[in-house]
């Protein structure tokens, strides 16, 4: 393993009974390539389906069947490699990884071992304290997914469905560059964001479109790397964190009790939050990799790669930098906005021709808050970017107050409609007519002579009057105008 791995900052160390420990984490993320058909067969790659319905005779490994590679999967892998700032290998080789398992019909997985399609790259993570971490990418290779075995339907039988068998996966292998569960979670989150920007993986972890094998080891700070355990197929970002925390603690406890860690494959049980050894993988691995003789080397030329690079969308890091530079947003706000490409696009549409900071506030605080509250995805937002923009314009031009704007947002959210028309038809316009405001002030003062007297002694009482006047005008009075007139009438200053 790499000796150039970074050391954890002091506050990331884990306290043990005998001193501090550092946890070393590397991830192998399996990401399903967004494609219509499978990597080597023309059956559907779509999630779900009736048992063995998305299966060709190739996927079922019938005798004499041969793989034919799907160009789109190659294209997507290259685009992902470019998005990871990685080296693209113009020639790569598919190998067979041989082992027996009922959901592996060929008796081997077609994967890439010695010569992957994508080499070294890097992913940058923004951690909380404005600290940026670079996580190295070791490689990305294309491979086939396995089918699915269902073990819990029968006491002594397993049921095998090959719908997933042969679906294209990108295995993205990081260097062991992460030093805490938070960093690992940030890495998976960032990777997911990049893949979703590129449209090369939908990142749907519930459907297994992305899952992580987590390699965890512990060591005393500055000492050589310890023996690692691989936690297989962790299928949510939260579980990645839980699995690491549990596993690091387990390893520390074992070592502090005088034991040693044996290199093994483990499973994460999300109900107990624990990891356990996988019995079925106990046997020594001997995958007998060799180049698949059914497939020639995978080759393409640099112009092909260059064309894909030129057509790549703006990625989150670049977008964030642009939001900071061009819109004057804080890095924190910009980071939040670029988390999802559709959200960033939404924001940009709102910010177009408006005060970008106001747009960012509205999107982050009002829109995201409301979406979260109702569990609605931004693509289904009831308030469109155009509508939100119109609301902001009404505030900016003084037609409505900020407070009314929030009510207006709520109305547009639940009823829809053109914000300006709503303001008009429902009489939500701000009252700036000083006569009307003066009248309201006079009425309030006349009804509360004691408070008027008090206010002369205690100028902070003015706030109470503002509230009363706003109440009397149904919140539509321009607060600045109310303030100024009140001070005048109360004889303050």
């Amino acid at each position: 393993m790499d000796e150039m791995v970074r050391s954890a900052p002091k506050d990331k160390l884990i306290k043990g009974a005998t001193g501090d420990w550092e946890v070393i984490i590397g991830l192998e993320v399996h990401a399903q390539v967004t494609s219509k058909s499978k990597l080597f067969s023309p059956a559907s790659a779509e999630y779900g389906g009736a048992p063995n319905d998305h299966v060709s005779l190739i996927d079922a490994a019938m005798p004499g069947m041969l793989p034919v590679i799907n160009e789109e999967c190659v294209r997507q892998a290259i685009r992902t490699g470019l998005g990871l700032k990685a080296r693209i290998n113009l020639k790569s080789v598919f190998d067979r990884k041989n082992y027996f398992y009922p959901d592996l019909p060929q008796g081997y997985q077609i994967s890439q071992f010695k010569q992957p399609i994508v080499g070294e790259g890097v992913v940058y993570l923004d951690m909380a304290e404005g600290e940026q971490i670079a996580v190295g990418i070791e490689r990305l290779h294309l491979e086939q997914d396995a089918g699915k075995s269902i073990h819990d339907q029968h006491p002594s039988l397993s049921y095998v469905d090959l719908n997933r068998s042969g679906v294209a996966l990108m295995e993205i292998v990081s260097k062991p560059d992460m030093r805490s569960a938070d960093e690992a979670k940030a890495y998976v989150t960032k990777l997911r964001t990049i893949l979703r920007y590129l449209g090369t993986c939908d990142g749907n972890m519930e459907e297994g479109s992305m899952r992580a094998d987590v390699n965890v080891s512990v060591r005393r700070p500055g000492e050589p790397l310890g023996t690692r355990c691989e936690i297989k197929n962790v299928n949510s970002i939260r579980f990645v964190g839980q699995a690491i925390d549990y596993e690091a603690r387990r390893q520390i406890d074992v070592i502090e009790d005088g034991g040693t860690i044996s290199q093994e494959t483990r499973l994460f049980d999300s109900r107990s939050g624990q990891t356990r050894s996988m019995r079925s993988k106990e046997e020594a691995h001997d995958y007998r990799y060799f180049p698949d003789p059914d497939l020639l080397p995978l080759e393409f030329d640099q112009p092909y790669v260059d064309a894909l690079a030129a057509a790549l969308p703006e990625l989150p890091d670049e977008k964030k930098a642009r939001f900071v530079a061009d819109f004057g947003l804080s890095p924190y706000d910009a980071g939040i906005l670029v988390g999802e490409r559709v959200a960033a696009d939404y924001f940009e549409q709102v910010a177009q021709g408006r005060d970008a900071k106001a747009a960012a506030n509205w999107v982050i605080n009002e829109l995201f808050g409301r979406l979260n509250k109702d569990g609605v995805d931004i693509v289904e937002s009831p308030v469109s970017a155009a509508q939100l923009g119109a609301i902001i314009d009404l505030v900016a031009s003084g037609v409505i107050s900020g407070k009314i704007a929030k009510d207006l947002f709520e109305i547009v959210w639940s009823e829809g409609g053109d914000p300006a028309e709503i303001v008009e038809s429902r009489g939500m316009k701000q009252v700036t007519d000083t006569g009307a405001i003066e009248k309201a002030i006079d009425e309030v003062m006349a009804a509360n002579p004691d408070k008027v007297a008090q206010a002369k002694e205690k100028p902070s009482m003015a706030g109470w009057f503002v509230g009363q006047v706003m109440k009397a005008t149904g919140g539509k009075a321009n607060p600045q105008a109310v303030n100024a007139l009140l001070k005048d009438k109360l004889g303050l200053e």
Partner: protein
Amino acid sequence: MSVDEATVRRIARLARIAVNDEEAHRLQGELSVILDWVEQLGEVDTAGVEPMTSVIPMVMKKRDDVVSDGAKADDVVANAPVSEDHFFVVPKVVE
């Protein structure tokens, strides 16, 4: 290169072929003879020689991303020793 019986058993296990004592013994002899015989390749100087990847120089064609197969679960399980509701059925697998 002669192999011992433990190696024969390890290889048989990897290949998922049950072997009894008699077979293991016989295979030990046969494998040793064959491996001895292929050992003569050691005489060939292969330093710097590219291993063969394809005998006929050609570029691998790629197919378009079109769904044109599937929806034939009947065919998929038609030859299965045991199947149920279009699933293949096997003795329980323990993870």
